[in-house]
């Protein structure tokens, strides 16, 4: 499938609307021919010829056709405009669905601003094409053919003169389309790039301010802004070579018709009356000819955007549903990693991971920055697929599950907390939009968020900004935790979720987490206190599990875990002594 075919698959759905529109355009163009004709009669016969009694009827006819023409025109504009909006609506829906279905790898490759441009700026070029370009081209062809047929019937030799023009027009138009294509693609590229720059600047506004880099950002922005303007001007420099050519061709046509026609009349090969009639049709030849260049721009603009959108969404997601997906309402939560390998870009990220977790158990994961802890969890949720080995949940490979039912059973609170610009309630209920307020509040109580939420001016109705700025890191983490818990998942993943929460709150959260029924919990953390009680602690290093066991077992091993423990709690003995001494 090509981009254009893809576009037509959307257009086809609204073909009745478009056909009706084209029909109305036909009527309207016909009426456009009638009006000057009536005016002509009034001027020549009534006013000039003195047939005064006809004026009433003719004027009424004139007004009627004008009114009729206005109505048909309004209707066809409506047809095309609504068709274009419908096509756009469907396309947006399609593209958005695709974006929702794309995997993490896709989002790692594509920048937010670029993807946004596909759904905004590029869509607009398509809107213009359906709403206007289609009928403008049709109208031009219609008028031109009509005039041509009329002239053929009047004097075929004059019609030949017109035919000579056609190849020139076609060749020039083709040349134009080819010449401006790169320039238009460049504009879309620049637009996208500008959009991306602004998007990042807005998102990163805190960093910009913290480093007082406003001047630098402005300078960079100016470059983007200049480049965009430059792209516009370059494309203008391209098409302004062509647009006037058509303008010239159209006037040349007039000159030739008069020259040939005049000579023919003088030589007695044609009557003067015929030439007069032919010149009456001249505007129908001229206007379409003149507009070829402009329409060429429209078409190319459309084609470029269409292609851009199409290439973005044709990337097939790597993570796909199995042919016969297994749907399970409620997983039990038994998890097993069997010889799991994961590599991306020839870079081994995880190697030979093996462990087993029973339902209701807690797994603590600790390890160096970048050792693959989060990747482990991303594989479990199938955000990426393993490149070797297998991951089993309830003794079945995760690849066999229906993707949604799998993820629905896993509540994940991510390292990088993303909150939506919505109320706190809306954010907590993100995974379960139909949740009752009691459920939301309950989840917030478990994650120790209820307290600070109730202190806010609008409590659960407080609107928080994107990325939850306006909340402290700890508050954001707790909202994200509540969000994960609200789904009542069988498997809970806390990826560094309590790093910004003070220890008292953390232990409170952990207590309540255990009190709410049996579920398998994965905790990624750097603080020993977060994972100490886990049934299984995995210590990760460079993509491998280097130590595993319970807290006590690992302390005995005197390995990495032991070292970390000592760094964090080296003073334990001293404190113990102090405690015993201080509080007998």
């Amino acid at each position, binding site marked *: 499938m090509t981009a254009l075919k893809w576009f037509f698959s959307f257009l086809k759905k609204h073909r009745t609307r478009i056909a009706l529109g084209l029909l109305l355009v036909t009527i309207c163009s016909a009426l456009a021919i009638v009006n000057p004709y009536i005016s002509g009669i009034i001027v020549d016969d009534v006013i000039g010829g003195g047939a005064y009694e006809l004026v009433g009827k003719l004027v009424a006819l004139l007004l009627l056709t004008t009114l009729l023409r206005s109505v048909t025109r309004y209707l066809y504009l409506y047809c095309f405009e609504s068709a274009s909006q419908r096509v756009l609506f469907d396309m947006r829906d399609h593209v958005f669905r695709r974006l929702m279905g794309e995997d993490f790898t896709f989002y790692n490759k594509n920048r937010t601003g670029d993807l946004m441009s596909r759904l905004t700026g590029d869509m607009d070029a398509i809107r213009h094409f359906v709403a206007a370009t289609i009928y403008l081209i049709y109208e031009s062809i219609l008028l031109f053919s009509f005039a041509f047929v009329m002239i053929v019937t009047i004097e075929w030799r004059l019609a030949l003169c017109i035919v000579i023009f056609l190849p020139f027009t076609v060749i020039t138009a083709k040349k134009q389309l080819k010449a401006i294509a790169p320039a238009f693609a460049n504009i879309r590229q620049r*637009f996208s790039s500008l959009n991306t720059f602004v998007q990042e600047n807005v998102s990163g506004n805190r960093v910009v301010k913290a480093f007082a880099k406003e001047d630098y950002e402005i300078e960079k922005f100016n470059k983007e802004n200049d480049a965009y303007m430059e792209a516009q001007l370059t494309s203008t420099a391209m098409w302004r070579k062509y647009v006037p050519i058509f303008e010239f061709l159209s*006037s040349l046509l007039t000159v030739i018709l008069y020259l040939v026609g005049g000579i023919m009349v003088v030589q007695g090969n044609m009557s003067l009356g015929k030439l007069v009639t032919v010149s009456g049709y001249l505007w129908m030849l001229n206007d379409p000819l003149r507009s070829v260049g402009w329409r060429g721009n429209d078409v190319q603009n459309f084609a470029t955007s269409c292609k851009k959108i199409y290439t973005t969404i044709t990337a097939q997601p790597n993570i796909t549903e199995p042919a016969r997906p297994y749907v399970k309402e409620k997983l039990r939560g038994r998890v097993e990693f069997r010889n799991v390998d994961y590599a991306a870009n020839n870079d081994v990220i995880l190697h030979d991971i093996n462990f087993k977790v029973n339902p209701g158990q807690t797994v603590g994961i600790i390890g160096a920055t970048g050792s693959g802890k989060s990747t482990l969890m991303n594989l479990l949720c199938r955000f990426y697929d393993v490149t070797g080995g297998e991951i089993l949940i309830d003794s079945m490979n995760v690849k066999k599950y229906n993707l949604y039912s799998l993820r629905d059973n896993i509540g994940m609170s991510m390292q990088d907390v993303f909150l939506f610009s919505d109320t706190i309630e809306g954010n907590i209920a993100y995974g379960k939009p139909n949740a009752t307020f009691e459920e939301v509040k309950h989840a917030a109580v478990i994650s120790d968020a209820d307290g600070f939420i109730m202190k806010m001016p609008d409590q659960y109705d407080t609107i928080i900004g994107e990325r939850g700025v306006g909340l402290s890191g700890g508050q954001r983490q707790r909202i994200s935790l509540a969000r994960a818990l609200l789904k009542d998942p069988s498997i809970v993943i806390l990826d560094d979720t309590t790093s910004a929460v003070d220890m008292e709150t953390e232990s409170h959260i952990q207590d309540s987490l255990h009190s709410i029924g049996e579920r398998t919990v994965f905790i990624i953390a750097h603080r020993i206190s977060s994972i100490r009680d886990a049934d299984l602690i995995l210590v990760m290093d460079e993509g491998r599990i280097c130590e595993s066991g319970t807290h006590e077992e690992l302390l005995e091993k005197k390995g990495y875990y032991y070292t970390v423990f000592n760094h964090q709690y080296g003073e334990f003995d001293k404190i113990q002594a102090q405690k015993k001494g201080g509080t007998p």
Partner: protein
Amino acid sequence: MARNKVDMDESLQSQFNIKQVGRLYKSYIRPHTKELVITIILMLISSALGMLTPMILKTIMDDLIPAGNIKGIVLICLLLLSINIICVSILRMKITITTKLGQSIIHQIRQDIFTHLQELPFSYYDDRPHGKIQVRVVNYVNSLSDLLSNGIVNTFTDLCSLFFIIGFMLSLNVKLTLVCLCGLPVLATLVFVIKRKQRVSWQIMSNKSSNLNAYIAESISGIRVTQSFVRENENIKIFNRLSNEYRSSWMKAVMYNFLLPPAVDNISALTTSAIYVLGVSWLSGGLEAITAGTIIAFTGYIGRFWTPISTLANFYNSLLTALSYLDRIFETIDEPVVVKDTPGAAEMPPIRGDVEFRDVKFSYEEGVRILNGVNFKAKQGQSFAIVGPTGAGKSTIINLISRFYNLDSGQILIDGIDINTVTIRSLRKQMGVMMQDSFIFSGTIMDNIRYGNMEATDEQVVTAAKTVCAHDFIMELEDGYNTHVNERGTRLSAGQRQLISFARALLADPKILILDEATSSIDTETEILLQQGLARLLKNRTSFIIAHRLSTIKNSSCIMYVDKGNIQEMGTHEELMERKGAYYELYMSQYDFLDK
């Protein structure tokens, strides 16, 4: 304004504010008066030449052909051709100038809005979805392009030719001209009647488009959350609702616009008819001294009278459309800069590093005090740790040092200088701030670290990375320092991102370093290495650290325990432990679990 969310319309100004147009002219169009005048003159020449064409054709038909003057026909055709060549060249020039004109104006507006955005405080960005800010800079400004390129030039040209035509018509027959002009009030009434609705419907449209845009932006940024919460279908529903709202608002607005051209057509037909009827009755009644020739000539001009009016009506339409965008653009440009340099602010001299808070009171929203009279003094080279429950105001304290917000009362002094009396940039440039949210720009890792100091050499960047223990993992990436990372650094782990923004902060070589939970995602081993490397670096710098892992801050020169908007305890670790207060409780609580 209250906080805005994605599907919430921003407030509407329903008044048709002609001042906006005046402002557009004054600030952006006037500097281009010269180009504008040249184009208009060119266009007038072109349309004057255009008016010759029918006369030339008439000569051919009426005189040359009946006379059988072939040579004459050829000559006059050549004349026609040369006129056309002139017109075509003028068209070419017009395209060049108007595109340049339109693009320059847009370029300028975009630059102004962006520059102003850089001045706006955090709260501006916190209060609305980022997509809504972005759409103003990019899409809204773009929507003005057509209006500003062809729109202006055509309008002026049309106005000129309109006056010409009226002049012509008046010279032919005053009464008929008046009849013709009668159509104008009718048109004006219609314009007036639909104006309000049209204006409001375009404003609604721009709002809906902003909502949709914001939703797209958020959906893409938050895709990871969406997928892990299996919210795709729900989001598609919301998206389609917003998309549909946008569609219907667009249809409604555009259908108002479509009313105008047919109205012009019909009014034009009406006046033309009136003239025919009147003319005929005069001719047949002989009441007026008028010839058939005059009426025929007159009707020839009526068409030329209404054509420019029709284009003006279109211009009016696009003006109304553009105004709905322009409102938002000017609204942003007019957004007051709350945190700004005080008049006569001096450059901050090179900072030594003494920081003092004097009775600092602060609130984000009126009536809700966050800080209530904070007092402390930090000496050059000291490290200050701030601990306390979440939401106690820890981040607020350090944000105030960089003057991200204005104080309600009290003073913050650096080296004895009130930070209100120096320029914000000179102040912030000398501070290294590392925030909770480590933002990575799309680009190479080298670029991201260098963001802290543009003049830094590659070696300096590498040194900074080594200091923060980021060098090793960077070298393991496929292209080392030249590895491309995405916006928000999605390819890196959170800890790695923190290390990179740490290196970035260090590269700025700040005298005051602020670390706001900067190491929360970094493992303990790395953190220890990091601290060893930092110890040397921090020697002559004053640092403020917020952390929840108490091992991170134990060795600080001073620890502040903040709660309820004030410093509850302050002292070294040992002193505070002695005191057995809130800090002691906090410190001991981390060992509680060991007793379980």
